[in-house]
């Protein structure tokens, strides 16, 4: 076998969630990514997220495309069905899966190559449809498996390992997603779990398309001086636009913020997103302020992070399509087949 199962060790005093499940229960097989890869930290954050949210693993599906990032769904939630599709085409698979059963939670993991180059079309249309899923871009600005080519998210002037500078304009997934009508757009950093986990929780519970662009340095090909997606550079240039907390349904808000600086957004599932602005000119509830904020930060060489845009009132894909509320794949055949009488009647139209 070329994959390694993690040995399962459960201790009596391991914390358990409301389902009685341990953290280990939400793990997957052993990661085969490079030691120190940002993606593994994101995997850890996802495990923490689904553990904390008490997700029944079989009620969740996890999908990906091709690339280092797309390997990661194997590394978490081994009791969830996984789907490693073809390069850049995970959104279409997620769309079909969602049509078949909209009751399942859906996590998609992609990379900057998988989303912003080969998958740009499908990504854009999943956004347009407001497909109900959490879409994570593990963004490192570089193609890892093919050994170090620039991706479409590489900044102008950022250098490759051998020194060549990227000269093409980067595509910023957050600005693109907001422009295309995404209803939940956030950016974070694989090295900042305190910021990332609440965003993952809110994104997973958001109804509609939630995209989180996570800067996730590639330790092998893009963590050197001169790269704008290295650990060091990201730590230096990121600026949190909005602090975000996710408050589960029926739980108390424990933090107190100064009046005027905080906002609450009710999520469809009953929880809340608690937001604290760091800057009066920026609100994640206003699409143009959000796009401007991202642009201004970028002009200053900063990476704006946090929940950058949220709109909980847009209908999602199945609502727009007027599909039944339950799972389409469990409608009984008797309700699907019109039967011989109906057929005979219909044939009169063709006589």
């Amino acid at each position, binding site marked *: 076998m*070329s994959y390694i199962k993690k040995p399962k060790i459960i201790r009596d005093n391991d914390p358990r969630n409301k389902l009685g499940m341990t953290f280990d229960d939400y793990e997957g097989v052993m990661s085969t990514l490079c030691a120190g890869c940002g993606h593994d930290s994101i995997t850890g954050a996802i495990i923490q997220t689904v553990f904390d949210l008490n997700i029944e693993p079989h009620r969740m599906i996890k999908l990906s495309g091709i690339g280092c990032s797309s390997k990661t769904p194997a590394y978490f939630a081994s009791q969830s069905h*996984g789907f490693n599709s073809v390069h850049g085409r995970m959104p279409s*698979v997620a769309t079909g*899966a969602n049509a*078949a059963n909209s009751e399942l939670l859906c996590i998609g993991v992609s990379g900057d190559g998988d989303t912003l180059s080969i998958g740009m079309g499908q990504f854009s249309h999943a956004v347009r449809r407001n497909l109900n899923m959490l879409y994570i871009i593990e963004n490192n600005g570089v193609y890892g498996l093919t050994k170090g080519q620039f991706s479409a998210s590489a900044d102008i002037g950022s250098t490759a390992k051998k020194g060549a500078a990227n000269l093409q304009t980067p595509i910023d997934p957050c600005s693109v997603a907001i422009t295309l009508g995404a209803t939940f757009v956030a950016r974070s950093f694989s090295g900042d779990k305190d910021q990332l986990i609440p965003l993952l929780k809110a994104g997973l519970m958001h109804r509609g398309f939630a995209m989180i662009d996570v800067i996730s340095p590639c330790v092998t090909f893009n963590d050197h001086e001169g790269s704008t997606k290295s650990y060091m550079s990201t730590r230096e240039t990121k600026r949190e636009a909005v602090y975000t907390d996710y408050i589960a349904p029926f739980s108390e808000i424990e933090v107190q913020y100064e009046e005027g600086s905080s906002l609450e957004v009710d999520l469809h599932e009953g929880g809340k997103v608690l937001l604290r602005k760091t800057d009066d000119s920026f609100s994640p509830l206003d699409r143009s302020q959000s796009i401007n904020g991202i642009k201004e930060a970028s002009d200053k060489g900063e990476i704006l992070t946090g929940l950058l845009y949220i709109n909980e009132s847009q209908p999602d894909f199945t609502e727009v*399509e007027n599909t039944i509320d339950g799972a*389409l794949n469990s409608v009984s055949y008797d309700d699907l087949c019109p039967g*011989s009488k109906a057929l005979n009647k219909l044939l009169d139209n063709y006589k």
Partner: protein
Amino acid sequence: MTKVSHNNFTVKFANVNGTGSSSANGMFMKSIFRMGIPVVGKNYFPSNIQGLPTWYEVRVSDKGYLAPSGSVDIMVAMNAQTYDEDLAAVEPGGYLIYDSSWPREELMIRDDITVLGVPLANMCNEKFDSARARTLMKNTSYVGVLAALLEMDTKVIEQLLLDTFGDKKHLIDANKTALDMGFNYAKENFKCPLPYRAKPINKTDGYIMIDGNATAALGCLFAGATVGSWYPITPSTSLMDAFSSYCSFYRKDKKTGKNNYSIIQAEDELAAVGMALGAGWNGARSFTPTSGPGISLMSEFIGFGYYTEIPTVIFDVQRTGPSTGMPTRTQQGDISLCAYASHGDTRHVCLYPANPEEAFYLSVEAFDLAEKLQTPVFVLSDLDIGMNDWMIKDLEWDDKFKPDRGKVLSSEELEEMENYYRYLDVDGDGVPYRTIPGTNPKGSYFTRGSGHNRFGGYTEDASEYQDVVDRLLVKWETAKTLVPKPAVSFSKNNDIGIISIGSCDDAIREARDIMKKQGQKMNYLRVKAFPFTKEVQKFLDAHKTIFVIEQNRDGQLAKLLISETEVDAKKIKSIRLYNGIPIFPKDVVEKIQSDLKAGKAA
């Protein structure tokens, strides 16, 4: 020509597209059908919205032959751009009707046919006020002319108007006026009826007139398909249009009025098939209709579906290739493409309906096969089947039918198992057990197009990899026992056989009758599926010479037979008719006979 021909002639309408002619031409054909006379219509239309030449050919055949005859007895020449070729197309002794509102007699000179001028535009301009009505009613008027010339039952036409326009009285009145105008003009000015006559008989009871995209859509509806994804492409678009319209009527949840289906117009064909696979994986019966260019685009995902073993149904309504080709002309050019679509070693189950009737039954069967075999299944129809109205037997439905979902484990079954592994060949038939997401945590597995072993784990191990792809060959052998058997007409007295496919069927049926009259009898097998079943091998073995007739340049079916059966390639005589027009029986006869003559001479 003085011999009277009842119910055996071809009328061709030459029109300009975008002028509303197709409703009038359809009305003509349907009236013949309702008079109990077998009839078929072929539409030769341009890939264009307005202004280009378009033809509609109606063959009336008391024997019930449904292939185009390849000759024109009466031409309704309504398009000045194509007068020359339309005039030339009429058989000696035939008739040409044209709009004589403008003096163009000098263009219509042919001694061996009769040219009939009718001032259609002048008459309609006098009677109707709006420009649109004047254009449309010219069409209805020539139907009136034909009604008089062919001695049609005008009550049938009038009833059809009532049925078509329902409560739109002004439309019924206008059409009735136009019909009468044409009818009376013909009666007053020509010797009616012509030697060609439509005489009511009783040969269409128990039949309908419908196109194969509509019947394929009905197949999806009755098979219980819930997710259809697609990208618009001629000539498959009307399949999803039909599915959508049937669903809006038959698939509303009784309590909420919401949809018991999901139709997704994708951003391209790559996404369309990705959605179909995603839905199939997640337990819905899913499908995507497309045409050749769409299959090219879908190929990567099709190989993925094959290797990861996900059921879905792909309709390829074939059109003329290569590349964009002629989008509104028919061909069987995707036989090879669909059989082996995608990189690496892939082979796919393909079904080949011959007409709209089979398009219904085989599309139902495709969904069962896809789930029983856990693989994408193709239904290869074509433009002729999909977009032309055919006379077919009433479709029948057995209410006892239950869809066969194949080997799907329930939550209870999973609970009783110690371990579940996705790609284990438990039963030895090459078909493993699958689970639907959301059922039970014990059923989880990882679907991946990268190397995987029988347990569903990622692998780069040589023997683990080979184990899975070899097991897929076992499944392929199982497929041979499950796919529909060919249609065979066999007598051991004949040593020549014909093998054909899909919409060639009616031309071959008629060609065999023609040759039989001449003393040349041949056996006939029509493949309905790939992989080929043992009946195909048996037929190949039983004949010294086998003509393989198909509608593509390169003899794709012939090559598939040579590479996928044990046949001696020398026995195969490949006959290819591929100009984009449905094939004519006389061309089949001519090709076979010239080949036989050449063989004798050698």
